[in-house]
């Protein structure tokens, strides 16, 4: 662009300002002239509205992945979060300008009425964009994939017919981020066996834990200090009963490694997890158990030194004190729907009134960032007070 064109443009800008009766002394310079490029269009570019955490990922050079099968709605994943994607439409026109000064601090006052120009290109326009919203990953699908092939011990592997999955095979089936998938695999005590992620059959767990706990009692070991190598040797001394990697997995699932002197790898059993294991074992094959009888059997079955407290049943079993006699039944959170509304529906179907303490473990697993259990209760439940105790029940009308 030669000088005479610029001068002519400046003249035009000044003329337009005069016609518009704008006081040039109140304006900043340079003035920017916006023009559409020759190939400006609304197809080349897609606008994606970002959650603040996703902006950070991009600014740090991280990539995002959109995942979906033909019949799924698409989701967007970072390393550790999952978002739903929806197309939003606006009745406004959004013009895209790559270079534009928008901060008055980058402009200067007009001196002696002098106008200077900057020519800016608009490369396109849009009237729609993609919106994202944080969602809970499809963990129920992940669970059902793993349930196709429970591990029952090495002797049953040959007849194992169900499909087994590596982590990348799972990532190809689940609309979720890798961190969320790994976190869930750990949470459900899934075990990586020869590269495939497996759930242990509960009956098999009972057998193996039985061997371990019996050995602990025989050897008079403290539950706080179980020596790993010695345990493997002694359990398997007359033929392999519990493979070493299984014992290690179980000690990690129901306990944790502790520091020990003498370089001996030791584990401490976790009272909460062991008591819950026993409760599940007792409740698994019955539909309902007499509460009083259950509590007696349960308390006497846990290893010595451990106390089976009712609070360990939260999120695992439901106590019904409205029936006579009181009963208890198994009710595990991982079998429940992950959609918030459906979750509440299934909870209120099974039990009419819940205290906060009772319902909290059945809601908090599906709260995503920014959601609290209290907020979800306010939204999806109705509260009432009886004898000084606050209860939550369904908002839906009761149909007779």
């Amino acid at each position, binding site marked *: 662009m030669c000088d005479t064109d610029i001068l002519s443009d400046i003249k035009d800008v000044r003329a*337009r*300002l005069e*016609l*518009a009766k*704008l006081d040039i002394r109140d*304006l*900043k310079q340079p*003035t*920017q*002239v*916006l*023009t*559409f490029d*020759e*190939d*400006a*269009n609304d197809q*080349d*570019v*897609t*606008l*994606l*509205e*970002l959650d*603040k955490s*996703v*902006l950070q990922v*991009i*600014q740090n*050079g*991280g*990539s995002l*992945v*959109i*995942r*979906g*099968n*033909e019949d799924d709605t698409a989701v*967007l994943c970072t390393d550790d979060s999952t978002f739903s994607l929806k197309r939003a439409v606006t*009745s*406004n*026109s*959004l*013009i*895209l*300008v*790559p*270079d*534009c*000064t*928008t*901060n*008055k601090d980058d402009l200067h*006052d007009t001196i002696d009425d002098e106008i200077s120009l900057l020519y800016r290109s*608009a490369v396109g*326009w849009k009237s729609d*964009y993609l919106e994202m919203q944080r969602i809970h990953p499809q963990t129920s699908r992940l669970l059902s994939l793993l349930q196709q092939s429970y591990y029952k011990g090495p002797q049953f592997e040959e007849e194992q017919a169900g499909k087994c999955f590596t982590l990348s095979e799972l990532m*190809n*089936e689940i*609309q979720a981020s890798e961190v969320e998938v790994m976190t869930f695999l750990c949470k459900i005590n899934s075990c990586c066996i020869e590269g495939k992620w497996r759930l242990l059959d509960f009956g098999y767990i009972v057998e193996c834990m039985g061997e371990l706990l019996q050995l602990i009692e025989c050897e008079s070991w403290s539950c706080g200090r179980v020596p790993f190598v010695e345990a493997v040797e002694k359990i398997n001394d007359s033929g392999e009963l519990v493979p070493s990697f299984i014992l290690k997995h179980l000690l990690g699932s129901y306990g944790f490694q502790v520091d020990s002197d003498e370089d001996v790898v030791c584990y401490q059993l976790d009272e909460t997890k062991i008591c819950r294991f026993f409760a599940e074992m007792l409740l698994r094959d019955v539909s309902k158990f007499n509460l009083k009888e259950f509590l007696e059997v349960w308390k006497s079955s846990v290893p010595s030194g451990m106390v089976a407290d009712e609070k360990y049943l939260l999120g695992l079993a439901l106590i019904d004190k409205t029936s006579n006699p009181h009963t208890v039944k198994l009710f595990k959170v991982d079998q429940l729907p992950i959609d918030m509304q459906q979750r509440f529906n299934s909870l209120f179907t099974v039990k009419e009134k819940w205290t906060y303490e009772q319902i909290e473990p059945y809601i908090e697993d599906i709260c995503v960032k920014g959601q609290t259990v209290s907020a979800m209760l306010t939204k999806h439940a109705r509260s009432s007070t009886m004898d000084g105790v606050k209860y939550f029940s369904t908002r839906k009308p009761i149909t007779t």
Partner: protein
Amino acid sequence: MVQIVLRPTNSLKEWTLVEYQGELNSRLGNGFCGNKIGDLHFNSKGDPIMIIGHHILYGKVKKLEKPFAVLVKNKDSEMDQREYLIKAVIMNKLIFSLRPKPIIIHVPKKV
């Protein structure tokens, strides 16, 4: 499962969005390409003012509560791997939501 990667380019730019209420109509009826939009001024308070055709539009600079990412299809990506490039982010917009004021041109009366 379809997996589409969105990859930020090495030098992530920052673009600006200019937002008009309703549709921007081309005066000549020949679409937008290559056509001038208008003059963008800023007053001493830092508010944008545009002169588009025979109208003045008064606007505001707004920091976006939710910034945008600008996605462009990556033509160089392999056949079976769909990839988009994140070319830029948009943190601010100029929004002209007030009704445009027509510029009345006074034809001077003959003396």
